[in-house]
């Protein structure tokens, strides 16, 4: 089991595909260090093995080091998912002393001007390169994450080469997942069929070439899929995501779902939330599934795909994920690609103040 702690929604970057919700949690609503520590204790007792400190930008929290040390002391495997722009030499040294196990560093592109444009932060890319160097010099394993879309995916070979040059142990080539800000900017970001084909071939070739050196995780866009992804490995099955203000969510996009009351870790114990809350049990397993999911051979492979996508595209969270070719709404995915083909590349940047 994994625990994703979105410590804050604050972030110096403004990526237009940010996985955070459109309505971001205000800084004053964030849980305090003692509350996060209690969540970590409860998670360890519940059988969580890995904790992912995420955000926003987790390094923007002054108490990150204290929280990493606490998690590490509970035997949890600690991971930070960061933009790297605040990962100074001093921050790196403190995190290392606190027992950090791994850092995932995000890049917006392999090309500096485009990376800075897409991140909305001038000089950001150069800071990331420095951060990568610090992580490797500290002897820590590095994952270089590249989120790809229509405006940068043609440079996928250069991204892989950059990850390789930085000494990454893992590279993630992750197509944008279209929720929240990504959905808002979908028409400007969806890749075209030839781009996807090129990207997939490049990843396959690099995997063969780099076998034994590094691994490449590849996340494909649902809009070209015939079968849905196993979103979060199944609803309420492998992950608990906690928002900055303490809401426990089965996935980071779940707040888009209407008709749910997401329990707060401020009011309720994590074990209780996991075992009994409507939020975690409603779509768990396969008893909730509609036709044709409930009789599908793949129902325990994809767990019915993604509920947020079912809501966003098909208008009903309990319906078949439209990524599936068996969904009556599958054609809406193709239509979205058609609409994106000639759409403006203008992006609405992610901002704390909202859209």
């Amino acid at each position, binding site marked *: 089991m*994994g625990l994703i702690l979105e410590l804050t929604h604050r972030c110096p970057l403004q990526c237009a595909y940010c996985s955070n919700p459109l309505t971001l949690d205000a800084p004053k609503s964030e849980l305090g260090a003692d509350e996060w520590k209690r969540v970590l204790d409860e998670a*360890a*007792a*519940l*059988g969580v*093995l*890995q904790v*992912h400190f995420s955000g926003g930008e987790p390094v923007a929290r002054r108490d990150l080091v204290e929280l990493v040390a606490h998690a590490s002391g509970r*035997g949890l*495997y600690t*991971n930070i998912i960061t933009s790297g722009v605040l990962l100074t030499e001093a921050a790196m040294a403190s995190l290392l002393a606190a027992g950090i*196990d*791994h850092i*995932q560093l995000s890049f917006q592109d392999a090309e500096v001007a485009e990376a800075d444009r897409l991140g909305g932060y001038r000089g950001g890319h150069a800071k990331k390169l420095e951060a990568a160097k610090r992580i490797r010099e500290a*002897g*820590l*394993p590095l*994952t270089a994450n590249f989120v790809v879309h229509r405006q940068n995916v043609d440079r996928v070979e250069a991204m892989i080469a950059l990850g390789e040059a930085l000494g990454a*142990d*893992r590279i993630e080539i992750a197509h944008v997942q279209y929720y929240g800000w990504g959905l808002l900017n979908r028409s400007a970001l969806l890749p075209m069929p030839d781009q996807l084909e090129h990207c997939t071939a490049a990843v396959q070739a690099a995997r063969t070439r780099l*076998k*034994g050196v*590094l*691994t490449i995780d590849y996340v494909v866009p649902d809009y070209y899929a015939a079968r849905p992804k196993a979103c979060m490995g199944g609803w309420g099955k492998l992950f608990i995501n906690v928002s900055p203000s303490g809401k426990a969510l089965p996935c980071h996009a779940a707040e888009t779902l209407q008709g749910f009351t997401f329990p707060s870790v401020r009011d309720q114990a994590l074990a209780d939330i996991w075992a009994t809350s409507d939020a975690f049990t409603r779509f768990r397993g396969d008893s909730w599934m509609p036709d044709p999911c409930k009789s599908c051979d793949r129902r325990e492979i994809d767990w019915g795909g993604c509920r947020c996508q079912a809501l966003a595209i098909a208008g009903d969270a309990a319906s078949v994920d439209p990524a599936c070719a068996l969904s009556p709404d599958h054609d809406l995915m193709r239509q979205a690609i058609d609409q994106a083909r000639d759409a403006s590349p203008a992006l609405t940047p992610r901002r704390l103040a909202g859209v």
Partner: protein
Amino acid sequence: MSDEAAIPRFRRGVKFRRDAVRDAWVLLAPEKLYLPDETAVEILKLVDGERCVGAIADDLAARFDAPRDLILTDVGATLDDLAAKGAVQF
């Protein structure tokens, strides 16, 4: 398949440890989690960055009632699989 003389070790950032909540061995790697089966657990307990694949097979053959050849095949396959996943390297 890996050579008998190849020496497996865990990649940096990989931890193989006993989990008290599950009462089971777990293999923790960057953003990956594996719950190795009993055979894999016995093999992984012998991965120390010093023993080679052949020596791991020798140790297991001395303790378990199975032909060394068969054990060697299991050891190689298990470690190659984890190497492909990025948890082990030679």
